[in-house]
């Protein structure tokens, strides 16, 4: 499999995470997203006409969209079927619900990060931050009640799902967009649990689990 990759993209990181959790071998092709804007180039639009990262190529299949690729990789390479629980309709529905929620996180928290970090000056950063806080509040409450019911992950399964992967990166990178996570203790505990999943890898801006950075759940 080949991943068209940008190292600082949280959406590309979602795929690197899942492939690491599953032990899938893949190669990467670095796309000069910034400042080169090569994802908008005619060459890259042959791969993804939308001009967006990530995209993959696997045995001749070309796919775009982080969430779609998560579904594909989990379906194809997860023998246990826990990351994408296709056999459990109620659970699967919830996974899809939170995948859509993750797109909202990208549209808000990731946009604020692009504004502050990469100087995308056309983004309305205040609106983006406000939108991210609205979503973080909803997820924090959800995780609070989930923990109360003995559930560690976003969806009611003993194992994490691709919904956890889809939500994780831009929540962890939110401070680069001026979005503080101080007021979301259940999110902070969930992030710490996520970092302890065997096979977890970091990206720039995200640190490994450890007492110095995130306190484990009490």
């Amino acid at each position: 499999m080949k991943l068209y990759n940008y190292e600082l993209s949280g959406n590309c990181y979602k795929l690197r995470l899942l492939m690491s959790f599953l032990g899938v071998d893949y190669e990467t092709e670095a796309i000069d997203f910034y400042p080169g804007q090569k994802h908008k180039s005619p060459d890259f639009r042959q791969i993804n006409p939308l001009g967006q990262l990530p995209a993959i190529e696997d045995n001749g299949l070309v796919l775009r969209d982080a969430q779609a690729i998560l579904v594909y990789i989990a379906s194809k390479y997860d023998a246990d079927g826990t990351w994408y629980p296709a056999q459990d309709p109620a659970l699967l529905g919830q996974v899809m619900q939170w995948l859509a929620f993750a797109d909202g996180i990208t549209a808000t928290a990731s946009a604020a990060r692009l504004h502050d970090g990469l100087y995308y000056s056309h983004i309305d950063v205040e609106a983006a931050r406000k939108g991210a806080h609205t979503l973080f509040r909803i997820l924090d409450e959800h995780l609070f009640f989930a923990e109360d019911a003995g559930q560690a992950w976003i969806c009611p399964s003993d194992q994490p799902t691709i919904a956890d992967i889809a939500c994780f990166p831009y929540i962890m990178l939110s401070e680069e967009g001026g979005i503080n996570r101080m007021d979301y203790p259940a999110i902070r505990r969930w992030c710490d649990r996520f970092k302890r999943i065997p096979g977890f890898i970091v990206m720039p801006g995200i640190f490994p689990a450890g007492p110095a950075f995130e306190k484990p759940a009490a």
Partner: protein
Amino acid sequence: MLCNDRILLDDWHVVADLDHLSKGGIEKTVLFEQPITVTRSDTGVIACSDTTGPLPCQVKYGFVWICPGTPGRDIVHIPEAFDEDRYVISGGSFGVQVSGLRVVENFLDMGHFPFVHAGWLGEEPHTEVRPYQVEVTRDDEILATECYFHQPVASPTAKGGIEVQYTYRVYRSYSVALYKTNPLFDDRMDYIVLFIQPVGPEKCVVHSMLCYMKREMTRARLRWFMQLIFAQDKPILENQIPRRLPLDPRAETPIRADKAAIVYRRWLREHNVHYGATVA
């Protein structure tokens, strides 16, 4: 606090990377808390203005430069940028919520390699910074030489861990550079220059110019590597307290004797640089 430092106002500052500014494009940015507009016409002509009107500007090294005051000197001359056998490209412009002076100091510090860039520019247990030389040259630049560090992945072209030699050079308060060993050459070094745009006293944009030997390198790999490394520094920089660089010699006791940082702070005091610093 707006800038009152003549040495900074009468100098040239990068405000945009041409690679990020398309033809017919417009970019809004900030220098010394003043909004700046940079435009590139359909024919490629660059113009800059602030709220009062047009500003003198120049294009050099692939960046747009402006001088908010009366230019007292020209843009720094960097011969490495004209070498035929190097790629000379920007590494991207990154907004960082910290004083640009803090960025310079971090750039001069080898001690953080094994911790912040673990597996790339350093690795435990090789954490010791061996003694090196620092001087202020006749051209009034700071030069740190004889710096050595073991690096697992010194460059995208590295085939394994090597002993890397560094030379650091502070051109001006907000411009700093380093030479480092290229894994494929005995006699040629790669060169990285940071042009730091002071947006506010606690906020900057870091523009980088990469002058790398072309052998076995591609532009995309080079940018990939630079951004990977810089994004590892960013959260560390943004957690510095205070966000400004303390210039009072008693204000902050360095944890280890960091010679280059001590000389840099003294040099800033002697040049009356206050912007981005806290002064007793």
